[in-house]
Structure formats: C-alpha cells, structure tokens
C-alpha cells in the first residue's frame, strides 16, 4: 500500500459511527458462541457419553432425541443458523487479524492465535461432521444414525484422527471463548479476575478434552478408555 492511501486510511478511515451494525454483529457472534453453540456442545457430549454404556444405550438415546418435540425447528433455527452465522462471521473477522508471534510469546497472545486457528479447524471439522452424520441420516439414509454407523466411520484411522483433532479444536475454541466472552461483555474486569478465569477456562478445556476423547474411544474400542480405569 502506498503511504498516501495509508494516510487516508489513518485519517479518514476511522469512521466511528454509532449507526454501524458491527457492534451488534460482534456481540451476536460472541453470544452465539456460548448460547446456543456452547450449550449444545455440552449437551452433545452428555448425550454421546451414553456410548460408554454400549450400542443399545447409545441407540436408545438417539431415538429419544429424535422423538423430541419441535426438534426440526430447534435444529435448524437454534443450531444450524447460529452455527452458520458464528462460523461465517468468525472467518470474516479473522481475515482482519495480523498475528504477532515472534516477539510476544506470552500465553494470551498464543491463546489469541490458537482461538483463530482452532476456529477454522473446527469450521471444517463441524461441516464434515454434520454432513456425514445428521445430513446423511436426514437426506441419504432416511433413518437415525446408529452406534454401528459411528463405529464403522471411526474405525478408519484418518477419520478417527480427524475426529480427535476436530473435537480438541472445538473444545479449546469453546473454553477459551468463555474467557474472551467474559471480557468482551465485561463480566470480568480486573487483572486478577481475568487470570483466574483463564485458569478456569483451561481447566474446562482439559476436562472436556478428556471426556471428548473418551467418548470417541467408546465407539472404537470395546470399552471407553476411562471406563477401563473404572471412571
């Protein structure tokens, strides 16, 4: 860029107008990450954990959820729409990011970069995951997905690896997102509060990562990793 256009950008470009919708969109982006998407992530882990009790338990859970009232409306309006908005707007705003890595290696800057990387990884993973499970069930198979379907999928090593990377990305993105959500909305303000919340969010990340991998393992092995240890 030439310096003249840079000068223009610096003088005329900073148009702070209250009529702008970017504040609303940003806040909506922040909110949808927690409700409904973060909430659904926790619910999704909870329901899928039934796989630890074997194929029958999992299939039973799937049937139970499939018979929920207003399921179609909830799925499309409360899940797919926020998901598309959160990911498309997220990628749109990530374009403006110019990460500074070399000189600033403190954990918040690393977390900032990871948040964006995990978001993009999560976008592709979730797209693949939703199409190959839910859309497959709705539009191709015409029946609900079963434990065996998932076990077959996950028995392919690269699919299993993809799921692990995907689940870890989603979990990190959600946990660190809890932290930045709290600052964006001003729930936490002080330095001490921000640091404590960072610890809490990373603890949540660790727990959810273990649970996520444990659930995945339940589909592939006879017994989930944790239940083998009696947990």
């Amino acid at each position, binding site marked *: 860029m030439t*310096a003249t256009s840079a*000068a223009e950008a610096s003088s005329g470009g900073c148009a702070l107008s209250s009529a702008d919708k970017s504040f609303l969109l940003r806040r909506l982006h922040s909110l949808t990450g927690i409700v409904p998407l973060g909430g659904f992530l926790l619910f999704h882990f909870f329901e899928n954990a039934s796989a630890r009790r074997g194929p029958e338990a999992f299939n039973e859970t799937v049937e139970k959820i499939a018979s929920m009232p207003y399921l179609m409306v909830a799925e499309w309006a409360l899940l797919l729409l926020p998901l598309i908005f959160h990911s498309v707007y997220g990628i749109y705003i990530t374009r403006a990011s110019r990460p500074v890595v070399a000189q600033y290696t403190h954990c918040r800057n690393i977390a900032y970069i990871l948040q964006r990387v995990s978001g993009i990884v999560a976008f592709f993973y979730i797209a693949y995951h939703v199409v190959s499970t839910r859309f497959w069930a709705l539009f191709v198979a015409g029946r609900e997905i079963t434990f065996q379907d998932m076990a077959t999928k996950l028995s392919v090593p690269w699919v299993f690896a993809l799921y692990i990377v995907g689940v870890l990305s989603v979990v990190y993105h959600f946990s660190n997102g809890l932290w930045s959500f709290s600052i964006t909305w001003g729930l936490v303000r002080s330095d001490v509060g921000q640091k404590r919340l960072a610890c809490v969010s990373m603890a949540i990340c660790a727990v959810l990562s273990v649970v996520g991998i444990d659930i995945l393992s339940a589909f592939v092995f006879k017994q989930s990793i944790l239940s083998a240890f009696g947990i």
Partner: protein
Amino acid sequence: MSHAEEGKSAPSHSSHSETSAGHSGRKIRVRVKRQDNPNALPYWQEFEVPYQPGHNVLSLLMELRKNPVDISGKRACPIVYDSGCLESVCGACSMVVNGKARQGCTALVDQLEQPITLEPMNKFPVVRDLAVDRSRMFENLKRVKAWVEIDGSHDLGPGPRQNPAEVRERYVMSTCMTCGVCLQVCPQFAIDNNFVGAQTINQVRLFNSHPTGEYQSDERLDAVMGNGGVEDCGNAQNCVKACPKSIPLHESIASVGRQATVRAFKKFVGL
C-alpha cells in the same frame, strides 16, 4: 518534530566522541531501516558508532547525526526520527528496536543485542526513516471526546470531591503518552483498518470514570460502539505487555466492554 533534517550540516566529529573512541576502540553496530519519503521503498543501512557507556538509542542517533557515514564509508543522509522529552514521558520516539516496539530513549544500548536494528513502527504511515505519522491516535481521541468539558460562559464552580482511591486508579490511566506502542503490537490494529485500539479505549475509561468527564460518557461509548470500536479487540493482550507506562489496558478494555454492554441494553429497551 524531526530533529535531524536533510541538508543540516553536522560537525564531522565531536571531540568527546573521539576521545572515548580512542579509549576503548569498541564500536556500537546499528542497522537502520530507512525510507526517504512516504512513497519511497525502504532500505537498510548499517552504521558504527564509537562506544560510550550509558548510550541509549536516541543518544546513539544523535551521535550518528554528527557524522552520518555508513560502514562502507559512504556518506549517508542524517537519520530522521522523532523525539521530545528524552525521558519516556512524551512518547514521540517510539520505534521498533531489535524487533520490539518501545521508546528509543529508554532502550539502553548496553542492554541491547548488536547489531541493534532500528525500524519505524509499521502500523503508522512512515514520514521519513524512523519518523511516523501518529495522527490517527489524535483523531481517535477527538472522536471519543477524550477530555473533561469544563468551559462555559459563566463560572462553573469547583468540581465535585473525588475519592482518592479512584484518583489513584485514574492516575495510571492518565499516564498514557499516546506513543502508539500498544497499537504497533496489536494483532487487530492495522494501517489499513479502522480499529481504535487500546490507547483510545483506555482514554474512554479514564474520562468516563472522571466525575465531570462522565457527563459525556454516552457520547464516548457511542463512538467506541461503532465500526472499529472496542468490539474489534481480540484479547491478545500484547498491548498491556508492551505498554511502557504499565497501564492496565486489558482492564480498561474489559471495563469499556462492560459499559458498552449496559449502554447497548439501555438503548435496546429505550432507557
């Protein structure tokens, strides 16, 4: 204000630097990223300055002005840079020293790895060499009304009494010298976008927490709730790590975020 201007005749050597060079023979090696005008392409030039104890980057640049000859012996144009107070109060001499944005006056040569690399901050338009145009920050300060409105056609009387604890808290925020380091290190702030950055957001917090300044708090919040406002913060928190005045910028951003939340809610329900 540029202290080294083209065409200014500089003495080839001061007697002081000659004697100290004679003492040790040590040299300070410095690489400078130069740019002849705002539209020119940048290039690197390397210099050597006789060692003297206690040099900082600015005194080094002053020394270089006396005899601007690069290491190949070619006469160079004196290096243009901004400086003012020379004691880390005015913020004018912000530049990138060995990859880190900071003030030249507090960058002590004895603590720097050599060759010392000096670059202009690349988040601002380069005027010449190390001097950059930081007016974007001042424009943003005007937009958020970063002042206390005390002028009237009649005597407004004394201001309200203030809690000393709050005054102390505000004092730290008020030490901002608009140096631009927080913006230089910010991954969300770029030369071609319109994010206001930590510097302006901190001033919004400062004046919104002032008992008289808070009369304009809604206007300030509306300004930073627009395009390029506080929402563009990505919480990388490089700003607070790099701030030479140790201002808790991350707290200021969270605080203005909270005020924006309340303001948005009030506007939504019509309060």
